[in-house]
C-alpha cells in the first residue's frame, strides 16, 4: 500500500508540468473566449444600433440578447476541453511506453522494485483517474469565475438569462457528458471510463509481453472487451432474445462491467508479473 501511494505520487510528479500547462491553456483560452466573445457581441450590438438607428430594446427585439451558452459553444471554450481529453487518452498510452522507450529504460527500475508489480498497474490507472478528476474540478472551479466575468462584460439588458453553474453544465453537450448532473450518473460514467482504462492497460501489456504477436492479441482483447460490454445492446436488437426490462439491462451492464474490469486486472496482473519483457 505504501509503495502504491509512492508510485502514484511519482507518476503524478512526472506528468505535473504538462498537466499544469493543460490547466493554464484551459484557463487562458476560456477566459480569452469570454472576453473576446462578449466584447465582440457588445461592439456589434452598438454598431448595429447606430447604423440602423435602433434603441436598446429595439435591438433586443430584433436580434435578441446573449447568455453563457453563446460562450460555452465557442471553440475558445470547447477547444481546451477537447485538448485535455485527447491529452489524457494519449497519456494513457504514454504512461507505459515512456518507461520502455527513450534513452533510459526506466522499466528496469520499476519492474525491479521490491513491491508487487500490480501496484505499478494500479498506480498508473490511479494517476489517470486523479488527473481526470482534477480537470473536472478545475473546470467546475473556473466556471463561476468565467460566468461572473461574462455578466460583468455584458450590459444588464443584453443578458438573456442568468445561469448558474449547474445550468451551464447541463446546457452544454460536451460538459453535460463530462460532468453529469446526477452523482449516480457520474459514478456510472467514470466507472465505465475506468473499466476502459484497465482494458487498455491490459492490451498494452499484451503488446509489451508478446511484442508483434502481442499487438494482435492486445487489439483483439480490446475489441473483445468492447463487444462483450456492448453485448446487451446486440441482444436487445436480436429477435430470438426475450425483451429485457431496463433494470435487467442495467444489472447486465453492471455485471459485465465488473467482469471485464476483474478480468482485465487479473490478466494484467499475470502479464506484468510473469510475462512482461524489458
Amino acid at each position, binding site marked *: 500500500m505504501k*509503495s502504491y501511494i*509512492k508510485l502514484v505520487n*511519482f507518476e503524478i510528479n*512526472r506528468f505535473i508540468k504538462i498537466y499544469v500547462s493543460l490547466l493554464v491553456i484551459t484557463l487562458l483560452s476560456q477566459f480569452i473566449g469570454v472576453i473576446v466573445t462578449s466584447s465582440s457581441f457588445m461592439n456589434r450590438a452598438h454598431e448595429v444600433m447606430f447604423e440602423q438607428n435602433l434603441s436598446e430594446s429595439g435591438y433586443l427585439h430584433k436580434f435578441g440578447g446573449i447568455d453563457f451558452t453563446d460562450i460555452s459553444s465557442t471553440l475558445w471554450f470547447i477547444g481546451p476541453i477537447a485538448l485535455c481529453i485527447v491529452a489524457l487518452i494519449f497519456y494513457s498510452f504514454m504512461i507505459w511506453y515512456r518507461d520502455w522507450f*527513450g*534513452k*533510459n*529504460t*526506466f522499466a*528496469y*527500475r520499476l*519492474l*525491479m*522494485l*521490491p*513491491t*508487487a*508489480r500490480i501496484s505499478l498497474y494500479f498506480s498508473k490507472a490511479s494517476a489517470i483517474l486523479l488527473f481526470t478528476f482534477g480537470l473536472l474540478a478545475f473546470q467546475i472551479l473556473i466556471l463561476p469565475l468565467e460566468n461572473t466575468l461574462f455578466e460583468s462584460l455584458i450590459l444588464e439588458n443584453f443578458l438573456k438569462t442568468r445561469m448558474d453553474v449547474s445550468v451551464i453544465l447541463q446546457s452544454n453537450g460536451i460538459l453535460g457528458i463530462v460532468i453529469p448532473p446526477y452523482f449516480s450518473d457520474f459514478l456510472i460514467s467514470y466507472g465505465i471510463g475506468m473499466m476502459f482504462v484497465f482494458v487498455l492497460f491490459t492490451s498494452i501489456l499484451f503488446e509489451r*509481453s508478446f511484442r508483434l504477436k502481442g499487438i494482435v492479441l492486445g487489439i483483439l482483447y480490446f475489441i473483445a472487451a468492447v463487444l462483450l460490454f456492448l453485448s446487451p445492446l446486440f441482444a436487445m436488437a436480436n429477435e430470438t432474445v426475450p425483451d429485457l426490462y431496463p433494470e435487467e439491462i442495467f444489472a447486465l451492464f453492471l455485471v459485465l462491467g465488473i467482469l471485464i474490469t476483474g478480468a482485465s486486472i487479473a490478466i494484467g496482473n499475470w502479464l506484468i508479473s*510473469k*510475462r512482461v*519483457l*524489458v
Partner: protein
Amino acid sequence: MIEVNQLTKKFGRKKVLDGVTFTANKGEITCLIGINGVGKTTTLKAIMGLTPINKGSILIDGQKINKSMYEKVTFIPDAITMLPQMTIKQAMQFMRDFYKNWNQERATELLTFFKLDEKTRISELSKGNTAKINLLMGLAIDVDYILMDEPFSGIDIFSREQIAEVFTSHLIEDRGVIITTHEINDIEHLIDKVILLDNGIVLKEFNTEQMRQEEGKSVIDVMREVYQG
C-alpha cells in the same frame, strides 16, 4: 547461491539459451563470457524475472524470484535505469523511497569516490559517469547478489579503472557478483569463476585460480582453446 538449471529461452523459433546450467556463489565474482549473441544479457534478465523463460529453473538461495528478492539481488543493466531529468540526488531519493535496504552512507561514499556532484542531472553525465552512477544505484543497496551487464563496455579507460577498483574494495567483498563481458582484460585478475557461453550453451565452466594452479592457463588461454581450437 544462485542456481541456474537447464535454462532454455526461445525468441520465436530460435533458442538463445539451451539448457544453460551453472551456479554463482556468494563472495565470488562469476563472469559470463560470450563472444557473440544475446545469451548473456538474457540470462541475467531471466534471473531477475525481467523476461519469461521457456524451460528450466532459477533459484536464489533456494527461492524463486519474487518481489522480496529485489532486496536480495540487484541488476545493473548496461544502460542507466534512472530518468534523464532526475538529478543524482533525486535518483538516490527514489531508491531510498522504495528500497528498505538502501545504504545512503555507501551511496555517499561511492559518490565521493567517483568525484561526482549529486546536483548533476543524469542527462548531463558523460558516458563514463553514467556507468558509474548506474553502478552506484546497484551497489548502494545492501543486497547479497549483484548482476552486472557489460559494466565496462563503451567507456573511457579512466572510468574503467575506477570501476575496476570498486571490485577489489569492501563494497563488493562478501557479495556474490555475476558479471557479463566480452572483454576480459580489465578484470581477469578479479574474477573467481568463468562460464563460457556460445550459441546458447555452456561450453566450459571453471575456477580461475584452480585453472591457473593446476593447468597453468589464464582465462584468455582457455577462451582461445574453447572458441578457436
